């Protein structure tokens, strides 16, 4: 072919526009407007653990990895998470990543972020995710390399790599005043607006910008109907929402046996119907929990209703709950009324999530509603549930036999069996599990949930007007 002729031909190429109604590739650009029925999340990932909080926080702070829709590990800030030996996990960070404050991501930031979960001032039930590590992540050293972490395990725990993808383990800078991590979005010059992070390792989000309006359910629905939002989070799923989200945000009633009495569980089971409690007081999507782990992780055990304790209690107890979760107030009030029939005088005590977790860590409470975002694997979920129950010491006995099983299905089965066996002995009563509800407008495409059941907003894109 004559090169000059082709060059001339190409320069004069005739252009034939076709209608851009659809496309085989996702479309870039636009501003995604989201309405969230809730308050702005805490900056601490361990406290921003409701599904909607975790969704928002993960926009600007990723963990080392994330679980995709099929629950496969997808490295994000890490370039590689590999295990050559059962007792060693290697985490290599991607080079060249920088926080908003300009400092480069290093192994030191990873260690600092993880070790916060086990420190007395910020003790979190999610430290159970790191239990197989020395000192539950507090004795890790980043001295060897700025980019690589060798993680020695105290016992084989094949689910550790997946556990590192939990949103509570998001990486934040170890130093500096900003706690903002590295996510698909970063702060823009306008308040309340995020812009696409071009340097995000998985690729920038399809939308250019994202705005989040925090409101209540009615406000979110109104913004959606007025086309002032394309997405409402924290609302019941609509017909155009993606596949049902796994309900992993699990709420337990934790009690101190010496204060509530040995027959408290019997009193609860005699007077509280979890199905009704969930149906009437917890917004959908939600499921009653009769077992230690939610329906997404194990089949629920049928519960027989015992007779109420023979002798009325006469105890005065306080019930702490998370004031940022409206359904917890409703549930707490319902428990107060129902248990009053059995002569429990219950005083309600709303607390911030940080205060609630501090009270849980100190053990200074009578009754407490405690909600945690469980990982989608039974073994790590069991570890967190035991931690919530205040049975940290049981982890050393319970986890190694499960971790010794090489097959995923075997570990899943073993963890479920232990969850079934342990529940009656734990000072904790499972109540209900929740998932993130989302309503999506028709001009938002490819809205999907990740393996943790959280909306992956960086994968969504806007259709043309």
């Amino acid at each position: 072919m004559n090169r000059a002729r082709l060059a001339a031909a190409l320069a004069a190429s005739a252009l034939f526009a076709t209608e851009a109604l659809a496309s085989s590739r996702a479309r870039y650009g636009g501003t995604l407007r989201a309405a969230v029925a809730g308050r702005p999340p805490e900056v601490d990932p361990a406290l921003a653990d409701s599904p909607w909080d975790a969704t928002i926080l993960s926009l600007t702070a990723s963990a080392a990895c994330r679980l995709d829709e099929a629950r496969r590990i997808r490295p994000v800030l890490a370039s590689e998470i590999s295990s050559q030996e059962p007792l060693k996990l290697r985490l290599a960070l991607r080079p060249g990543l920088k926080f908003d404050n300009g400092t480069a991501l290093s192994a030191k930031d990873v260690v600092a972020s993880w070790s916060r979960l086990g420190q007395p001032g910020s003790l979190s039930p999610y430290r159970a995710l790191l239990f197989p590590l020395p000192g539950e992540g507090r004795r890790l050293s980043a001295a060897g390399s700025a980019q690589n972490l060798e993680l020695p395990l105290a016992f084989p725990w094949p689910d550790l790599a997946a556990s590192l993808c939990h949103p509570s383990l998001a990486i934040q800078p170890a130093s500096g005043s900003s706690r903002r991590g590295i996510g698909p979005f970063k702060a823009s010059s306008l308040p309340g607006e995020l812009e696409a992070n071009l340097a995000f390792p998985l690729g920038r989000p399809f939308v250019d910008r994202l705005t989040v309006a925090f409101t209540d359910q009615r406000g979110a629905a109104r913004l959606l109907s007025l086309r002032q939002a394309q997405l409402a989070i924290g609302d019941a799923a609509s017909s155009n929402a993606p596949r049902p989200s796994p309900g992993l945000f699990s709420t337990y009633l934790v009690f101190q046996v010496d204060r509530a009495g040995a027959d408290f569980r019997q009193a609860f089971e005699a007077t509280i119907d979890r199905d009704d409690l969930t149906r009437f007081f917890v917004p959908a999507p939600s499921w009653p929990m009769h077992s230690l782990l939610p329906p997404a992780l194990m089949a629920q055990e049928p519960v027989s209703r015992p007779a109420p304790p023979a002798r009325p209690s006469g105890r005065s107890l306080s019930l702490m709950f998370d004031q940022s979760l409206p359904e917890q107030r409703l549930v707490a009030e319902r428990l107060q009324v129902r248990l009053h029939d059995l002569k429990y005088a219950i005083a309600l005590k709303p607390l911030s999530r940080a205060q609630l977790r501090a009270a849980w860590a100190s053990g200074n409470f009578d009754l407490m509603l405690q909600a945690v975002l469980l990982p989608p694997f039974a073994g790590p979920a069991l570890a967190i549930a035991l931690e919530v129950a205040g049975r940290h010491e049981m982890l050393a006995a319970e986890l190694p036999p499960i971790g010794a099983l090489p097959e995923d299905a075997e570990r899943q089965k073993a963890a479920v069996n232990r969850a079934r066996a342990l529940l009656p002995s734990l000072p904790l009563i499972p109540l209900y599990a929740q998932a993130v509800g989302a309503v999506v407008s028709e001009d938002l495409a490819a809205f999907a949930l990740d393996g943790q059941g959280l909306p992956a907003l960086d994968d969504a894109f806007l259709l043309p007007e």
Partner: protein
Amino acid sequence: MSFRRAWAAACAAVALGPAALFAVRSPSAEETERSSALARLAQRIAGQVSAASPEPPLAVHLAGESTDLGRGFATLLLSELALRKLGPTAVSAPSPEAAEAIAREGGARSLLRLSVGLNRGDLQAKGDLISIWVNFWSGRANGRSNRAAAVIFAAVEADAQALAMASELPAPTGGIKLEGARFADLPQWTAAIAAGDLDGDGRDEVVAITNDEIFAFSPEGRLLARRDLRPLGDSATPCREPFGAISIQSQRIAYFSAARRQGEILALDVARGAFRSLGSLNEAPLAAQGETQVWGSFVPGRSAFASDLRLGSGEAWSVRGPLWTLSLFAASKGPRSLIAFADGTASWFGGVGIPRGRQFRSSAAAIDIDGDGEPQIVTTSSRYRAEPDELRVLESPANDGPAPAASPAVDGGTDDVPLQLHERWREPIRGGWALQVVGAHLMPGKPAQIVVGVWRPDGSGELQIFRKVSR
């Protein structure tokens, strides 16, 4: 077959479906997602009608673009309306205007008049809802009721079923038949594919890149070599989908993955089953044909090439926007180029263009499938994550001028009478979504075959090959 007969069949279908009529249950989100375009459209229309609270019984007059489409939609719509207890009855009338009197005579209190058809990839239904009840005391005036009327409109993305039912065109003459088969499996989604003779045997090898690796396959689909791309470093601004470019010229492979910091030039050492690096690249090799090469750069963070291109001769070439693919073809009458732009439009060099409504997207390629020296346009579905995707072969515009000066640009989007491109073949692609298409001469002396890069839903990739077979 008359539309009246089709309508009667639709009524019978409704009457024979009592289980569906009496089982009042809203479909779940999953069911709705899985349902066909016709079913989704019927649900939306029924929802709109129900929201307008028409007085039953409701007469429905429907005009369809084709008999099959009208009958299928009528069946589903009447079922949906019956579920909403609107007492639907079908009205057969020569026109929507005539339907009013016929429906009134039949005792209906409301009338829904709709037309259904395809429009630019959407399945649409539009019309109105009116009350036709007449007060006995109004005498002969026969005036309209004072109840509110409503305009009804809904559209959903058409699917293969709707396309099949809408099409009543005779089978194309001069059509071809292709047979598809799996060619090779890949661990990840493909970022780009290309074909070219790497060992001088006169047959093309197929080369594919993913975000992390490059692969070379023999004409039979046997893996010849693979190489890890990660040592090339991570791109500072990677894009979310696998994307890249490969060109093969003089037995050398030039490639650049958007996930990597730089590209590379390789040669295939067949004896050792390995690639040999000949150097690195800072530009993306968009296409090569004969002695001509076209180079470009990535739009940072996006799966697209920037509009400023460079020819191998050094000349600059600016196209009208970021693009997905550039396909070159040396035809007997002169060079041909096909560009798929990132805004969803496409360009074809020649005197006649792609008519309005024809959509081909990222995986369009110019390939001579029948060996006549002129390329056909091979495209996949224009829909995002189409289920199933499809491969179509369109005849390229027949009136191409031999040289650019003799064939001035014609904008198909503003052309009053756009020419219909002749579709020669269309079949579903199984297993995933097709994002790349190239031509490959895998058999000596035979026309080119089509190699398609398919993204499987589980994150792995597949190369499929389509060959022309006798009819």
